């Protein structure tokens, strides 16, 4: 229900835009413009090789073989099978273990080629020395994709074995994730190869954000945090040693994925920087990409000869590269989640922000943050000022930041928001809600949600406080309102969204 409303809203926004465009540019053919955009998109993205296309079977398998499935609950192979079953996966599941007849009431096969049906994805959790053999068998059975959970390869110096596996998978154009990874999560299709038990690590709901993580440990934290923040995910993948499928391939695949509306990434290194940049500049035209790079502080060039080298270390180059292809760089996991919330918002370009608050001090902090990020306080129009004066108490001044003072009710918020939404000199609205006041109750959630769906400009909420506040933050986020705990984090995210809009909508059409 809620989702439908949002979709409808987006639709309205788009139709009005299209109309406005048509009115202004009678002579210009709008479609040719968008056509050129999509050309740029595909030129930068480049063609997907078959191996990358086969990622479809990793994320949407209609049948999965779990190699190394076990009756022993402490084994990873058991946890994966159980998570698939508990998670409500609707495809076929085939546990593989030569010494069992059935596991968790499912018929068990000695090897994949013994399964009389087609298998889309093989999840491999057997010791490293058996992986090659298992993969050979999977390829014999024409399995198009696999996830190697097992570690013990190049990360501990076992490079040769890894290269043998790579040759095998590349020749068969098998989409191979890992090794040494947690694999994938697709909440839409209930595909879940993460071997951490569901009661310890909650899975996020289905949504539109996709996440890629080189590290399994960080990946686990991401999934857990995402679900606790109420972020809804389209796809998650921990890709480990990136033997056959690396970050560039995944981003390329997700760029084409209809369900993915924004992409977040945690990377430690990039295998081919140029290719990565080229793909990213294509992606950024279509959907936002935010990245957290680990290992930023490592002194890149201590033995450098020139000033240039000592001043332009590899982490600075990474930041520059990301900037050049419209990617948004995060400073930490928190940052990445802050950005994740902001992308599903109406597009805006202007820098004039209205701040609405029931606490003076927080308004000042917001004004400070606006200046820090190069945004500005909007000047209210005479009409807005007139309308504000009709209902604001005498002690509240009709100026930006708009402090509607400590006894503000949900109704006063609603009227103020209506005025700000109408004001053409306002590009975005930051609403600060201090829920500790006596006059505010949970009905503020409805007021903000209504405003959010009604408004064609972004509205973001800042609410600072303890348990009671956090409960309401969660409610607001469930309704799709980006909600932050401090003015500075909110405005930093707003600024990132604006920069992204400017990047992908002002790039010259080549």
């Amino acid at each position, binding site marked *: 229900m809620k989702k439908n409303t949002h979709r409808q809203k987006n639709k309205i926004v788009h139709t009005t835009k299209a109309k406005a465009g048509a009115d202004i540019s009678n002579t210009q053919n709008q479609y040719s413009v968008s056509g050129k955009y999509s050309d740029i998109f595909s030129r930068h993205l480049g063609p997907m090789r078959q191996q990358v296309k086969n990622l479809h079977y990793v994320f949407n398998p209609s049948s999965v073989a779990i190699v190394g499935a076990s009756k022993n609950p402490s084994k990873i192979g058991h946890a994966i099978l159980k998570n698939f079953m508990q998670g409500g996966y609707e495809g076929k599941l085939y546990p593989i273990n030569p010494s069992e007849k059935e596991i968790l009431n499912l018929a068990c096969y000695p090897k994949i080629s013994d399964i009389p049906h087609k298998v889309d994805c093989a999840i491999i959790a057997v010791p490293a020395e058996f992986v090659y053999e298992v993969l050979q068998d999977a390829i014999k059975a024409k399995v198009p994709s696999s996830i190697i959970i097992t570690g013990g390869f190049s990360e501990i110096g076992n490079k040769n074995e890894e290269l043998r596996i790579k040759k095998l998978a590349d020749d068969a154009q098998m989409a191979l994730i890992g090794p040494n990874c947690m694999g994938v999560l697709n909440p839409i299709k209930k595909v879940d190869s993460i071997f951490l038990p569901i009661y310890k690590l909650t899975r996020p709901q289905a949504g539109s954000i996709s996440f890629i993580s080189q590290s399994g440990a960080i990946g686990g934290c991401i999934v857990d945090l995402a679900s606790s923040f109420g972020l809804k995910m389209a796809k998650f993948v921990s890709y480990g040693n990136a033997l056959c499928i690396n970050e560039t391939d995944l981003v390329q695949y997700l760029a084409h994925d209809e369900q993915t509306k924004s992409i977040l990434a945690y990377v430690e290194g990039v295998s081919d920087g140029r290719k990565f940049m080229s793909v990213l500049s294509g992606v950024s035209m279509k959907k936002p990409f935010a990245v957290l790079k680990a290992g930023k502080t490592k002194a890149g060039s201590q*033995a450098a000869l020139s000033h*240039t080298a000592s001043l*332009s270390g590899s982490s600075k180059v990474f930041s*520059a590269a990301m900037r*050049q292809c419209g990617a948004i760089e995060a400073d930490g996991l928190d940052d990445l989640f802050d950005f994740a919330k902001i992308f599903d918002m109406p597009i805006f370009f202007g820098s004039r922000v209205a701040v609405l608050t029931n606490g003076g001090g927080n308004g000042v902090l917001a004004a400070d943050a606006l200046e820090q990020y190069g945004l500005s306080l909007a000047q209210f129009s005479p009409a807005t000022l007139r309308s504000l004066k009709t209902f604001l108490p005498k002690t509240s001044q009709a100026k930006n930041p708009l402090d509607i003072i400590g006894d503000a009710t949900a109704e006063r918020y609603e009227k103020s928001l209506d005025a700000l939404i109408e004001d053409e000199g306002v590009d975005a609205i930051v609403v600060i809600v201090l829920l500790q006041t006596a006059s505010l109750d949970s009905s503020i959630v409805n007021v903000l949600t209504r405003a959010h769906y009604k408004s064609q400009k972004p509205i973001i909420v800042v609410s600072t406080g303890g348990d009671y506040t956090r409960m309401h933050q969660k409610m607001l986020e469930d309704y799709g309102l980006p909600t932050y705990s401090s003015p500075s984090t909110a405005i930093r995210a707003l600024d990132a969204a604006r920069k992204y809009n400017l990047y992908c909508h002002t790039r010259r059409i080549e």
Partner: protein
Amino acid sequence: MDSKSGAESLMDFALLEKYNIPVVPYRFATSQSQAMLFSRALGFPVALKVASTKILHKSEQHALALNLRDESAVASEYSRLSALGGKDCKILVQKFLPSSFELIAGGRMDAQFGPTIMIGLGGIYTEIMQDVSIRVAPPSDSDIRSMISGLKAFPALRGARGQSGVDLTALVKILRALSNLMVHEHLSELDINPLLQTKDGLLAADVRVLR
């Protein structure tokens, strides 16, 4: 102090000229009389610098002499510098141009992203302030503009409080040329330090190239 890595770098002005990066008029002298001859040809005042491959911080090591106004000054500084530089060391004779602004520009081959270019605030505060902007080469025109405007010192570059700043159009051209150079020459490092704003324009006053 020798260069940090001990590797040899070249004072290759010709390479900059090949890519149309304007340089301060210069000659390399191998004898005192040659230095005096070149000084006259370039016109006083001149600057002398040891063209050693191993001296990085010339000013800290007194490996340069600026604002020399006549031949006798050139003669005596030449003796001092050639002693400092050692046998077979060339001495760079340059026209001495007072500068109103010092920048540093350069490039580096990055292991992940390939050739990159850099622009930053020059002078004695370069390493203290670390006010630099980097782009992967070749940057688009808007990348170059944002690269320059991204410097903290940008308001000063533009000219502030009655001070003239830097010729920004020339700077854009130089960065584009630098990008070209880095893309085509596959250098591991290039350092133009300083890049001076003089009355004759924005000119490279010193360069180090590491192949």
